[in-house]
């Protein structure tokens, strides 16, 4: 006799009208995916809730947290974690991987060019003003030759999937994108909490991220060092991403240093150890350009190290990512990335962009103002999902305010059509409901580019919301890239 069927998590699940990452209407059948779907259907919801609760307690005790400081105390918070995984098939992954590698190659070529001969500007492929007038364009980088011509050693591209299931790039992140620690920790958590769900399913491992990072950063070390000394430079324990810095240093097996641990003497960088000063060759820095070197940038910075840029210019130390990569992940420059790919690589972009209107151009401005109610308007300089106005969801007053802001400073805005982000079944208040997700794969570049087979799936936990940023109520999911099926 069969036990009575309890309520399954997917019994009442309805993702219409969006593309669902688990159901995949209209796409080719995938037997591994089918198997996972069936296992999920047979889980009972009470079990799911209980394991989700345990998982969150575990995250808290392990200190996989970010810290919120009040005047009296420090409060640790976990990033909400959803136990229902997001799945990517082997075929999809292979396209994504090639697309990411292509994009990173093109952006590194672009950075080399604009900090040397500026051919792309002379050829008129991208407006000079957008590049040279960009706040993140750093004159100090002119003529500096980073090893392997690599500027963006660590890159995270934000991808979304539209109603038809087609992937497109929403944003490039070339300045220390964060989140990779959650990719790995989420997987380890799932392996402990759901061994039954994962048994026999061939999922690509994400555990060797630290090892690969170490290998790639060694490739870009100054030529004289055959056994380079690598450190991770963090703003310190009070930074909200401190856990990630700990994770990266630990996985690479390198010291996590703060600005006060480093010193520059004779244009060489050293760290202060018990036995005295020891040389440093590569710095994976998680401090923004502005705070990196008080000699060159923000003079008030207590976080950085005076003289880093001098040492970097002499080629005595490699900074990862290089200074001045922000100009390549700018939201307005983004619109030109397909052209940048064609220009440097003579290839068609593998991953398409979202159609983008640059309000700094007359056409872009008039189109944006005429279609404000249908578009998503983004400030160029912001990140973290701040300042975004979603036309179809905004009130008349909000639209009016947005219009005034654009008119006052058009160069500060872009607009894009609203994408109906794909959804994933997500456990919310004891029920499984569709929630919108995005995907950030991580690429590491030394001599060449390696992409971690996985990525950070961020999920907007608020019903109907398409803003997945953790600062705006977003959570994360484990991302399973399935292995190629052997026939």
């Amino acid at each position, binding site marked *: 006799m069969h036990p009575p069927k309890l309520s399954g998590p997917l019994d009442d699940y309805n993702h219409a009208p969006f593309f669902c990452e688990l159901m995949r209407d209209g796409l080719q059948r995938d037997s591994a995916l089918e198997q996972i779907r069936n296992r999920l259907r047979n889980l009972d919801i009470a079990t799911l809730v209980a394991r989700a609760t345990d998982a969150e307690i575990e995250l808290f005790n*392990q200190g996989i947290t970010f810290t919120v400081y009040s005047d*009296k105390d420090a409060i640790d918070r976990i990033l909400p974690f959803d136990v229902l995984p997001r799945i990517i098939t082997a075929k999809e992954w292979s396209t994504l991987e090639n697309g990411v590698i292509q994009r990173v190659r093109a952006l590194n070529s672009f950075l080399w060019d604009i900090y040397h001969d500026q051919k792309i500007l002379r050829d008129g492929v991208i407006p000079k003003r957008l590049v040279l007038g960009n706040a993140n364009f750093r004159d100090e980088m002119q003529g500096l030759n980073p090893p392997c011509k690599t500027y963006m050693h660590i890159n995270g591209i934000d991808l979304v999937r539209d109603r038809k299931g087609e992937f497109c790039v929403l944003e490039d992140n070339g300045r220390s994108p964060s989140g990779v620690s959650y990719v790995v920790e989420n997987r380890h958590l799932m392996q402990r909490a759901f061994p039954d769900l994962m048994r026999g399913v061939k999922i690509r491992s994400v555990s060797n991220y630290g090892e690969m990072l170490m290998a790639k950063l060694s490739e870009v070390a100054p030529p004289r060092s055959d056994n380079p*000394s690598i450190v991770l430079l963090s703003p310190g324990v009070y930074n909200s991403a*401190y856990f990630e810095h700990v994770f990266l240093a630990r996985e690479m097996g390198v*010291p996590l240093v703060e600005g006060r641990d480093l010193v520059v003497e004779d244009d060489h960088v050293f760290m*202060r150890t018990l036995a005295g000063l020891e040389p440093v060759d590569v710095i994976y820095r998680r401090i923004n350009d502005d705070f990196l070197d008080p000699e060159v940038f923000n003079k008030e910075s207590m976080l950085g190290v005076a003289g880093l840029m001098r040492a970097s210019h002499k080629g005595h130390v490699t900074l990862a990512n290089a200074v001045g990569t922000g100009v390549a992940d700018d939201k307005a420059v983004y619109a030109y990335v397909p052209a940048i790919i064609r220009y440097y690589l003579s290839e068609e972009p593998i991953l398409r962009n979202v159609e983008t209107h640059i309000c700094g151009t007359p056409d872009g401005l008039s189109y944006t103002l005429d279609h404000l109610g249908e578009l998503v308007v983004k400030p160029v300089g912001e990140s973290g999902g701040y300042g975004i106005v979603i036309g179809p969801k905004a009130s008349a007053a909000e639209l009016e305010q947005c219009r005034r802001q654009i008119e006052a400073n058009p160069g500060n805005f872009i607009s894009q059509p609203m994408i109906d982000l794909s959804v994933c079944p997500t456990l919310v208040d004891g029920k499984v409901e569709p929630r919108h997700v995005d995907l950030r794969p991580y690429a590491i570049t030394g001599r060449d580019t390696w992409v971690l087979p996985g990525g950070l799936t961020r999920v907007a936990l608020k019903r109907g919301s398409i803003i997945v940023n953790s600062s705006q109520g977003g959570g994360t999911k484990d991302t399973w890239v399935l292995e190629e099926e052997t026939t």
Partner: protein
Amino acid sequence: MSLLARYAENLFWLARYIERASSLAGIIETHMAYDRARAEDVSWAWLVTLHSDQEKFASLYADTSFKNVLKFYMADINNPGSVRFTLRAARENARALRATIPSEMWVQLNEFYNRFLVISDADLDPIRLSRTCSQIKHGCCAQLGVADSTLYRGEGWRFFLLGLMIERADQTSRLLDVKFAQLKTNATNQVADAVFWSLILRSAAAYQTYHRIEQRGPDPNRVARFLLVNPHHPRSINYCLRQIQFMLNELCSDFQLLQVSSAQTRSMAMIEILQQAAGDQYLVANLHGTNDEIQRGLMALTNDLATSFFGYSETAQASQSQSQA
């Protein structure tokens, strides 16, 4: 590659703060558990005097009732000497070390700290206090145990042990000063109070050992001598100083850190002081002076390490060492 100097400093203070929290919980627990004669309406002013906190305490509390003193030393985040403050400081040091210490150490401390954070007034009530104190002691002991069984035996381990032993010597010295603090706040108190000296032994986890080794009742001279110079009791000041010497010698011989010499000289001089005090027939009468000398010596030892290794100059006070006063 040698150890990042800041990591050595964090390990040193991690151990100190853990030991400090444990000792304080131990003193409070034994006084609660074995001092029933002194009911809870009796003043606990001696604990305030012992830590020289009179001024700070008076600015925050109306009187030295048991309840107030307990709150001040267990839960008050405004008191740098409270268990709450001390555990937070231990955890902050561990947080700075997370990339280098085994995750077992961090996770144990983090769980322990998160459990401690939710203690309420009810946990400080005499009915529950003993249990609360023993939970704190267990948490601290577990951290030392996890460190002992997982922490790499490099320079960092020596600095961890140096912190532990300096703090432990300091705490034992303070314990030997409790009588002095009590006499100061209550003149009718008697030096030769056998109940009291048993209590001191229990606070130093030495009650059974003392009876086994000495085979007689807790006479003040013998107890003081035991806690000062016994070579084998892990909380005697002599034992702690010898461990300190041992660690300093290893840093010099195994890791070629020759800057240990000033600390080596100082620890040798301190052992000398200890031996002299132990031979003094007026040991108990002069105990407060001896304790004073020991505590100042330990402070100077900490400054030696800060100057030689942590990058602090002779005059500049290490930010964290300010809270040792």
